């Protein structure tokens, strides 16, 4: 029995809109490779994450190898190389929030969602990640749900807060 050939990822087709947005970035940069991070963020915005096949497509567009792109992708916190849920919850674990009880809050959030850091709920609704200082230390503890900063988070508010994100 023969296995499918390994090492050949299908090259995904980027949408016209994705290509147009990436080309727009390239147009004002000295070289196409400089758009690597922008391109991955654009694709992630459209698809939720950056797959191997997406990397291959971006690589073809920018004239870069998949390995070079992956080395960049894995450096940054906000480029997801695995699928994530419909909503990404990021809980601040830096020092001001820590002083104001972020460790206990993180435990309560994990209990509430039934998942640990780096995991996604079985219904695909939430992915939970830690994040460093969100710059709202006077309103600690804080978390980010998608693009919304939530301040002064209390364990008793979790049901109401997460209830807003279907």
């Amino acid at each position, binding site marked *: 029995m023969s296995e499918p050939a390994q090492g050949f990822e299908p090259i995904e087709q980027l949408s016209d809109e994705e290509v147009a947005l990436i080309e727009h970035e390239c147009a*004002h*940069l*000295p070289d196409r*490779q*400089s*758009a*690597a*991070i*922008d391109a*991955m*963020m654009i694709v992630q915005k459209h698809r939720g994450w950056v797959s191997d096949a997406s990397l291959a497509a971006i690589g073809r567009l920018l004239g870069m190898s998949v390995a070079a792109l992956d*080395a*960049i992708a894995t*450096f*940054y*916190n*906000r*480029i997801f190389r695995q699928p994530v849920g419909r909503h990404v919850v*990021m809980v601040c*674990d*830096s*020092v*001001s929030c*820590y*002083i*104001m009880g972020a460790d206990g809050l993180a435990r309560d959030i994990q209990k509430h969602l039934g998942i640990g850091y780096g995991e996604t709920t079985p219904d695909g609704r939430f992915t939970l990640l830690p*994040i*460093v*200082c*969100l*710059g*709202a*230390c*006077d*309103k*600690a503890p804080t978390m*980010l749900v998608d*693009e*919304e*900063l939530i301040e002064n988070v209390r364990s008793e508010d979790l049901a109401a807060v997460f209830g807003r994100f279907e």
Partner: protein
Amino acid sequence: MTQAPLTERIDRHGHVGIDDYEAGGGYAAARRALREMTPGELIDLVKDANLRGRGGAGFPTGVKWGFVPQGDAAGKGPKYLVCNADEMEPGTFKDRYLMERDPHLLIEGMIIGAYAIGAGVAYVFLRGEYFESHRALDAAIRDAHERGYLGRDIFGSGFDLDLRIHGSAGRYICGEETALLNALEGKRAQPRLKPPFPPASGAWGRPTIVNNVETLCNVPAIVAHGAEWFRDLGLTDDAGTKLYGASGRVKQPGLWELPMGTPIREIVEVHAGGMQDGYKLRGILPGGASTDFLVEQHFDLPMDYGAIAAAGSRMGTGTMILMDDSVCPVDLSRNLQHFFAQESCGFCTPCREGLPWIEELLTDIEEGRGRPGDIELLEKHGGYIGAPGNTFCLHAAGAIEPLSSALKYFRADFEAHIERGGCPYRTGPVKRVGMGTR
């Protein structure tokens, strides 16, 4: 003349739109600078005003601008001005406030700065998680373009400026200016070996100036009111005002624009309202996670570059983190080293290998696995890891600052953990109720 050049419009309007901004005299400084002043005159003015970098290092801004080659010496190609808006130093929340509330102040500062160094392209390198700042800046840049304050032939001066936002994909090390430039170029954000420094060879190998948000926001008022006015705002040798902040268990955590050199005790007790009832202040990290602890003996010092440095710490970002007596200094140190270990870019061995090792040792001490000699081990290895010159950048050195000072000022806590085989803050009464605020 105003005593609060950074926040007076915010206090009046909340969120400052372009009409509010112009009604308060906004863009008049840029108009005058571009029409009536030479780049050299602007650089001399900012030098004379003694404006120092508000991102943490405190380097004189005018001196930095003066390093940029002008005219034929600059060679062919663009020069760049980059605003470091990658605010990610734990405990720091000042630049977000300025960008969300008064984005035109930053834009005007950038127009003047770009003109002074001859940059035709400027970037705001923005923290990726600052979505609200991104929206505010996007709208403000659009409004400024519409009125002809960005783009071609600004104020009829013949000066062109293209201002763009780069949303960071997220890593603390992007705040290091050469790492930031690599990120801007679409690469891994590893710090570069220096020299060359960015004013000689920065973004895409071209002369580049990287300035913090608050630094650039000070420039319009310096042009409007002069160097002497700016110097006189400060209470000490350092000039201007400063956005000071306080977080932790104080009654009113927040952010205040105060004269440079305002004493620590005044910030904590008057502006932050003192400690919450039942908590006593034990130590502060004066300017973010990578600054040395200060303790009671230092609280009457003025918060400026010189006095805090003389006390063995750094003013850093000026947003102080207060550690009260319910917080375990060992566990807080573990929290800090977890951050620094995670955010090391991984290029230099002492930082990549050393910081996780420090975190592990602190975790052992906190969780009751500490052994006699561990404190000395932390000091010794902290000394290797934090010594400047062992690494390309100051990430590791910054990580060791709060650790070495915690070992100095809270040594008894570390010893108690090792002697008792656990954390006294977890087994003993955590919150002492009924004690005065001081």
